[in-house]
C-alpha cells in the first residue's frame, strides 16, 4: 500500500521534472520587439526559443501546456535539432516505415505527456480526504472537551424521570399540540399511547 503510494509519487515527480521548463533544453531567449510603433513602448520578450509554433494553443500565447481539452499546444515541447529534423523528413513518408522508438521520439519532441499520463490518477484525493477527516476530528475533540470541562449539568426537569413523566402527563391533560404533536399520539379513549 505505502509502496504503491511512493511509486505513484515518484512517477508523478519524474514526469513533472521532465516536463518542467527548467529541464528542457535551455531555450535561449529570443527578443523580438513586438513594439507597436512609436517610442518607449515595452518590448515583448518571447521565450519559446527555437520551438516551432504549431497552433493557437489555449490562449494564443506561444506557451506549452498539457491540457486534455486543448490537445494541440501552441509550440512544440522540445526545440528542433538536427536529429529531429531527420526524423521529421522520414515522417513525411510512409508511417509504417517508422520504428516504434522513432514514433515515440517524434511524439516526445512535440508533446511532454501522453493522454494516459495526463489523465493518470494522482492520488491527491487521499490527501484531501485525510485532511478533511483530521479537521473534523479536531472539531469532535473540541466538542468532547466542552462537554467534559465546560458545560453545566442539565437541569433536573430534564434528567429526573419522575418530573419528566409528570410534565408529559400534564401536556397530555392540557391537550398540547393536539394536531401533530404530543397530544395527538395519546389515545384519550383507551388512556394509552397510540399504535
Amino acid at each position, binding site marked *: 500500500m505505502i509502496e504503491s503510494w511512493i511509486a505513484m509519487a515518484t512517477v508523478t515527480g519524474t514526469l513533472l521534472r521532465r516536463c518542467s521548463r527548467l529541464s528542457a533544453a535551455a531555450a535561449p531567449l529570443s527578443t523580438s520587439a513586438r513594439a507597436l510603433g512609436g517610442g518607449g513602448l515595452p518590448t515583448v520578450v518571447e521565450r519559446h526559443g527555437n520551438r516551432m509554433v504549431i497552433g493557437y494553443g489555449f490562449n494564443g500565447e506561444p506557451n506549452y501546456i498539457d491540457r486534455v481539452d486543448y490537445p494541440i499546444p501552441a509550440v512544440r515541447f522540445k526545440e528542433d535539432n538536427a536529429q529531429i529534423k531527420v526524423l521529421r523528413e522520414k515522417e513525411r513518408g510512409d508511417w509504417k516505415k517508422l520504428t516504434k522508438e522513432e514514433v515515440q521520439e517524434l511524439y516526445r519532441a512535440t508533446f511532454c505527456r501522453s493522454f494516459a499520463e495526463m489523465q493518470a490518477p494522482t492520488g491527491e484525493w487521499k490527501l484531501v480526504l485525510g485532511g478533511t477527516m483530521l479537521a473534523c476530528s479536531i472539531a469532535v475533540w473540541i466538542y468532547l472537551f466542552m462537554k467534559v470541562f465546560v458545560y453545566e449539568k442539565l*437541569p433536573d426537569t430534564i434528567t429526573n424521570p419522575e418530573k419528566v413523566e409528570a410534565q408529559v402527563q400534564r401536556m397530555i391533560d392540557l*391537550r*398540547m399540540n393536539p394536531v401533530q404533536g404530543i397530544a395527538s399520539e395519546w389515545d384519550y379513549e383507551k388512556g394509552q399511547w397510540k399504535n
Partner: protein
Amino acid sequence: MSTWSQLSFQDSASPLMEELIMFHDHAMLVLTLVTTLVGYIILTMFSNKFIDRFLLEGHLIEVIWTVIPAFLLIFIALPSLHLLYLLDEYDNPSLTIKSMGHQWYWSYEYSDFLDIEFDSYMIPSKDLEDNQFRLIEVDNRMIVPMNTYVRILVSSTDVIHSWTVPALSVKADAIPGRLNQLTFLVNRPGLFFGQCSEICGANHSFMPIVVESISMNSFLNWINNFE
C-alpha cells in the same frame, strides 16, 4: 408549547396560524422541488461526457430557465401577499387587553369593564412543581375567552421588549411611548406559551408569556371574581 427537540411550528390555536402553517408547507414544497432539481443537475455534471467547451448561446433554454423561476416566484408570492394582507385585517374585537413590558415581567390590564391589573412573573426553577415547565411558567396567566376576537395593545414602561405567542402567530415589540396593536382569535382551550423576543437586559430570557384560553362563561366568572 414546543416539546423537546421540536424544530417545527407548534400546532396552531388560531385560524391565521393555520394559514401560516399551510403557506409554509407550500413554500417548502417549492424549495424541495428546486433543491432536488439543482442537486440532480450537479450530480449529473460529475458523470456526463459532454465536452463542448465553446458553447456560446442557446436562446430557447435561456428563455425556459428564466420563465420557469419567474413562474415559481409568482406561485409563491400570490399566497404570500394574500396572507400578508389577511393578517392585517381588523374586525372590531370584543375585548381589549393592554400588555405592558417591564424589566423583567409583563403586566396585563383589562380595563374594558372593571379595572383589572396584575403582574405576570416567571416562576423560578427552584419553585416549580414537578409537572410544571421550566422557564415558561408564570404566576398569573393572561386569561382570554375562546372564539372571541381579542385585541392586545402592547407597550413598555422602560426598555424595548417584545410580546409574542407563536401558536397564535402574533408578535409585536413593546416600545416605551408607543402602542402596538395585535388581534387574534383563539379557537381551542388550553395554555399557550411565548417568551420575550427583544433583548431587554439580564433577565430577558426569564420573562415568559402565558395565555390561558377558557370558555366565555368561565372567563366572565373570573372577571367578576377577580380581586
